[in-house]
């Protein structure tokens, strides 16, 4: 194997994709240079601030774990959790991208025709895969390492072993995901490999998360006094340490040279085996995917009857949503979050506890609007409209050819958003009303308020994406998860809910205005804001499509 060739492949990948520059370019708006610079700086700072707040929250959690562990005589639990969260996150996030990066990226077909060996190409793709997810690993592990310093102090060995953890740690989940991806490609013979693999993977991951949660939940009936709490927590923490033994080894390796060498050797051996398997099967896997993808797929006769343009556009957007598993899983995850939480809590056996706790909370008048706002927030945080134009890719430019007003395109996307998000939100709100015994009389107004808020958010999201859509992408993740418009959209979603909350909760709390008047005020403000969002979306679409 020629290492300079591998380095050349990596260099050409970086030059060809310019990952950092493309992100910074997308964080600027406006035609004037000064406006672009200011908007770029402001948005980057916002992004940094939200990242830092997440890091702080993670650190606080790890710190609590670390302290609880020390209380019951199990050291480094915070570090263990950091390594476990980081690995689990990579296992979850890396798999959907594995096929696209390792075997099915557009440039691979061209590269395979060049005088490059399978092992050189395989190694370069594995390194690209590793670096794509390296930042996520850092994001989860660095707060834990800081907690380690805070609780046990700093040493040169700790610094050295931390560096090893940061660099070698991601190799474990990346190797596991790679091996699983190769297995899926071979088992499915390349036909719909991505979708079937992800479905299987989603089920396994859900089962794993629910399994761990329910196991831990069974031991988590706490008492009030510290002695009793310590006594009851000890078996949970020990069970956790046993269950997550590989991560306990990683955590202890930060302080013990022999344990460090043991896990390092294990991780490097796994990475080497993965490389050998990947290189050995590379040509065959690429070939399977190519033949599986190009095989003619006959379809049953579809309904192609006459429809209004707006319905045709909605159907088109729906087809795009279903076109790749990346879009399907993103959307499915977002729309079904409350349902997933209910299943998880039921499996954990704490749904009854939640129900009991809400009986107490329900006595407060603020309880009802807060529940509505929480359901609204869960529905509103989604990437459906704020990446809708981006998901069309270069084909979005074709919309300029069609003889339709720009508002028709906006409305089609908006109605699809309402059909998906509005409907699920109404169902969840109805379920919350029944489960938490909220006032049926207010339900109609809360549904109205939620639908208007979702509508307004959708319009603002469309305004963002029509203003600066990300049309050049090679994987579904780039169009949705890694699309800065998605980040801006989530921010807008959050701010919209805060804006509604100011009236719905803020007015009765601070000015003692009656709940019904506050609800009317919130409804009024939501309508006005949604109308402004609609105007902005139409203007933005006109700019893009005219």
């Amino acid at each position, binding site marked *: 194997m020629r290492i300079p060739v591998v380095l050349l492949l990596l260099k050409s990948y970086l030059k060809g994709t310019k990952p950092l520059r493309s992100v910074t370019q997308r964080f600027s708006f406006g035609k004037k240079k000064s406006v672009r610079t200011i908007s770029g700086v402001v948005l980057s700072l916002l992004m940094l601030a939200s990242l830092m707040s997440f890091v702080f929250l993670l650190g606080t959690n790890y710190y609590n774990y670390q302290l609880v562990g020390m209380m019951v005589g199990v050291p480094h639990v915070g570090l263990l959790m950091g390594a476990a969260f980081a690995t689990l996150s990579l296992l979850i996030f890396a798999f959907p991208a594995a096929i696209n990066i390792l075997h099915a990226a557009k440039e691979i077909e061209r590269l395979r025709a060049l005088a490059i060996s399978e092992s050189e190409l395989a190694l370069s793709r594995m390194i690209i895969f590793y670096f794509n997810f390296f930042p996520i690993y850092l994001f989860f592990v660095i707060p834990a390492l800081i907690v380690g310093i805070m609780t046990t102090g700093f040493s040169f060995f700790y610094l050295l072993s931390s560096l090893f953890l940061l660099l070698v740690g991601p190799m474990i989940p990346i190797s596991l995901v790679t091996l699983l991806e190769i297995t899926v490609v071979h088992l499915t013979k390349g036909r719909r490999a991505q979708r079937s693999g992800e479905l299987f993977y989603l089920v396994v991951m859900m089962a794993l998360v629910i399994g761990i949660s329910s196991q831990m939940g069974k031991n988590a009936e706490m008492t009030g006094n510290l002695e009793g709490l310590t006594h009851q927590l000890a078996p949970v923490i020990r069970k956790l340490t046993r269950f997550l033994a590989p991560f306990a080894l990683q955590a202890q390796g930060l302080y013990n040279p022999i344990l460090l060498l043991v896990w390092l050797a294990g991780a490097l051996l796994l990475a080497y085996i993965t490389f050998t398997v990947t290189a050995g099967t590379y040509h065959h896997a690429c070939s399977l995917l190519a033949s599986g993808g190009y095989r003619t797929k006959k*379809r049953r006769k*579809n309904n*192609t*009857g006459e429809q209004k343009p707006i319905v*045709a556009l909605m159907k088109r957007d729906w*087809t795009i949503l*279903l076109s790749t598993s990346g879009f399907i899983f993103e959307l499915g995850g977002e729309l079904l979050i409350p349902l997933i939480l209910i299943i998880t809590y039921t499996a954990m056996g704490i749904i009854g506890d939640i129900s009991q706790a809400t009986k107490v909370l329900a006595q407060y008048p603020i309880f009802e609007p807060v529940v509505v706002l929480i359901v609204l927030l869960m529905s509103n945080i989604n990437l459906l409209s704020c990446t809708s134009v981006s998901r069309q890719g270069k*084909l979005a430019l074709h919309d300029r*050819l069609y*003889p339709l007003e720009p508002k028709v395109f906006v409305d089609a996307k908006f109605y699809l958003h309402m059909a998906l998000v509005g409907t699920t939100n109404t169902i969840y709100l109805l379920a919350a009303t029944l489960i938490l015994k909220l006032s049926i009389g207010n339900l109609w107004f809360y549904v109205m308020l939620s639908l208007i808020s979702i509508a307004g958010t959708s319009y603002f999201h469309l305004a963002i994406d029509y203003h600066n859509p990300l049309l050049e992408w090679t994987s579904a993740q780039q169009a949705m998860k890694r699309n800065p418009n998605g980040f801006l959209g989530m921010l807008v979603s959050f701010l919209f809910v805060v804006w509604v909350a100011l009236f719905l909760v803020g007015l009765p709390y601070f000015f003692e205005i009656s709940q019904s008047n506050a609800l009317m005020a919130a409804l009024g403000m939501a309508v006005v804001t949604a109308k402004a969002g609609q105007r902005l979306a139409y203007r933005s679409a006109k700019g893009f499509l005219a």
Partner: protein
Amino acid sequence: MLICDKLYKRYAKNAPYAVEDLTLKVGEGEIFGFLGPNGAGKSTTIKMIVSLLNSDSGEVSLDGITAKDDPIAYKRLIGYVADEPQFYDKMSANEHLAFIGDLYRIPQGERTERISKLAVTLRLQDALDDEIGSFSHGMRQKLAIISALLPAPKLLVLDEPMVGLDPKASFEVKNLLKELAKEGKIVFFSTHVLEVAQQLCTSLGIINEGKLIYHGTFEALQNERDESLEELFLELTEKG
């Protein structure tokens, strides 16, 4: 009639013009061949005609309608076939054509009749229920032509339409374009294949470095100098 009047376009403030002072007229029943070396400004001009790009100055009009004044009416008159036709790969050809039919509000009966006629002409009728993702380049090209002709446009604009077509398909497309011209439609296409231009076009334009350096009939050009189109093309573009 298609009129391009003093079109200017450049992609950056200090960059050279991609299209500069381009003026041309193409009348009903004409097949206009647009020739030029790579990077001469053919695709930029075409994109301005089909309103994918706005010109910096100048305007394009079709039967007196401009994209600026009435974009919807203007777009209704135009069918466009891109050099690399792109589709939503998970749609079947029939679904895509139904989508176009809905956007242009073509009644069902008329739509079915046109699709079956065009699909038979271009021999794509057996693949209409297949996913576009499984199509070869030639099949995509044929589908793009059917999509462009489905709304029965007044002007058909094609960017390198013969690339990737097998000889039989190429022959069928040429016949189709001639038929359209006979019906009084305007056919505007760019090509690198000088023989195609020579066989098919009733008039041609040669563009080099963004400027239209010839506009007229092939016969008039040949009458000036007794040379082949290839020699004339090379001579004109090298001078530019």
